[in-house]
């Protein structure tokens, strides 16, 4: 559905993307992770045909993004910070403008507001909405016309956990309905939870990509097992035949409170790969 091969993008002399390749099959959620300034928004703008690029092959829905006709671009749903709302219009009216443009029946605006939990605020002006409500309205606008591909640029950044969860539910629902979703985020947990596939973007290249659990397993250097026992002590074991017996005995004794393997979280992997915290500069 979305394919990139050796994509390069420069702003003047500053090379932001230095040869990126990936392939997102239809119906998948692809998560792009990376620190601030890594070029995530730039990549979305390229994929949606808003920005040109210097080198590489890019194909979205089987065409180069700059070749997509206006009609074909209507098959995108886009949510990004630089896509504004009509501040003087209510939620309903904001959606109504685009319902008209996308030939979506008007009654659908009510349904979609309900879907994103804004039915109470339907008549409220966009300028009076909280940050979370604005995000949900932008999301509603991106989804309204049941697009084939949805691009979400940091859909949950700076939101409270409830709103974040609500947005996750909506995103997963859209996936079930068959949408292909491309999202960027700073949030590792979010990526692990939502995405079929993720890529870590750092300094213009993908430093790692794959299924979230797979990546974590790949960086499980210690390969150990950690236990917390009922007497308050912690023990660690190697994952080998020698330890198996000890572990078995402890388990049989009934003293084991928790048992974990020590594969790292995505966050730790990212730290290891880039030498910087994802959210340090926010």
């Amino acid at each position: 559905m979305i394919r990139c091969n050796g994509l390069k993008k420069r702003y003047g002399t500053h090379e932001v993307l230095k040869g990126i390749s990936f392939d997102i099959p239809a119906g998948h959620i692809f998560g792009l992770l990376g620190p601030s300034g890594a070029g995530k928004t730039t990549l979305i703008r390229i994929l949606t045909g808003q920005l040109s690029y210097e080198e590489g092959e890019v194909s979205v829905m089987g065409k180069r993004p700059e070749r997509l006709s206006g009609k074909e671009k209507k098959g995108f749903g886009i949510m990004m910070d630089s896509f504004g709302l009509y501040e003087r219009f209510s939620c309903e009216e904001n959606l109504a403008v685009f319902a008209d443009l996308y030939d979506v029946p008007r009654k659908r605006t009510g349904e979609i507001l309900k879907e994103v939990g804004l039915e109470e605020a339907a008549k409220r002006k966009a300028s009076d909405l909280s940050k979370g409500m604005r995000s949900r309205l932008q999301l509603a606008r991106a989804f309204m016309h049941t697009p084939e591909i949805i691009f979400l640029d940091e859909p949950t950044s700076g939101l409270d956990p409830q709103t974040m969860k609500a947005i996750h539910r909506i995103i997963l629902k859209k996936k079930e309905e068959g949408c292909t979703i491309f999202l960027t985020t700073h949030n590792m947990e979010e990526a692990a939870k939502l995405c079929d596939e993720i890529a870590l973007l750092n300094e213009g290249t993908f430093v790692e990509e794959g299924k979230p659990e797979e990546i974590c397993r790949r960086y499980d250097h210690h390969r150990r097992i950690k236990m917390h026992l009922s007497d308050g002590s912690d023990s660690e074991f190697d994952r080998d035949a020698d330890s198996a017996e000890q572990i078995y005995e402890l388990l049989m004794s009934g003293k084991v409170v928790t048992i974990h393997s020590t594969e790292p979280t995505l966050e730790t992997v990212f730290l290891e790969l880039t030498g910087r915290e994802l959210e340090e500069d926010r």
Partner: protein
Amino acid sequence: MHNIMVIIKKQIRDTFKNLTILIQFVLFPLMSIIMEKMIKLDNMPEHFFTKLFAVMYIGMAPLMAAASIIAEEKEKNTLRVLRMADIKPWQYLAGTGIYVWTICMVGAAVMSTELDASERLFFTGVMGVGFLLSVVAGACIGIFAKNQMKATSLVMPCMMVLSFVPMFSQFNGKVKDAAVILYTQQLRNIFDEMSLKAFSGTDAVILGANALLCILLFVLAFRKKGLE
């Protein structure tokens, strides 16, 4: 056509929410009617206020409205969303222009009620020509300005020249001689006669040159900046 209609519909919905622009639309027709009704001096020319405010209306409202609507849409980044929804730049500009022009025409029709019945159609027609030029000029500024602040600061001097110079020209012959190069002054002269009798070939050329200049600037601005 559908896209243009959506833009017009959106603007109509915004009319009563956007007070700064609503005031522009309502102020001049309202003022002219009130003044005509209230102030009646013996030696005052017929329909003095209607003619006075008509020219100010042409020189201010469409300019301000067109420039500020376009600049705001760029500044608030709603234009990008429209562009993604397959609205072409010309469709957006056409929709906005048609909207501003139409609202102004409603204002002109209201103003014309003070005139003699025989003059109304002529008056409104001339107003229409003036609005058209001003809308194009306003759109130029809207395309050129990065944001609403910049648009306002560019619109102000244009409005001053276009609407105040024809006003002062009636007190000062020199100003009037110089002001003939402005389309607003030309229209003012037409209103004074309420006919095209005194409208010479030179005047027609000046009016045409004004129109050409507006269109040229518009094309230039659009070529250079597009709607980004």
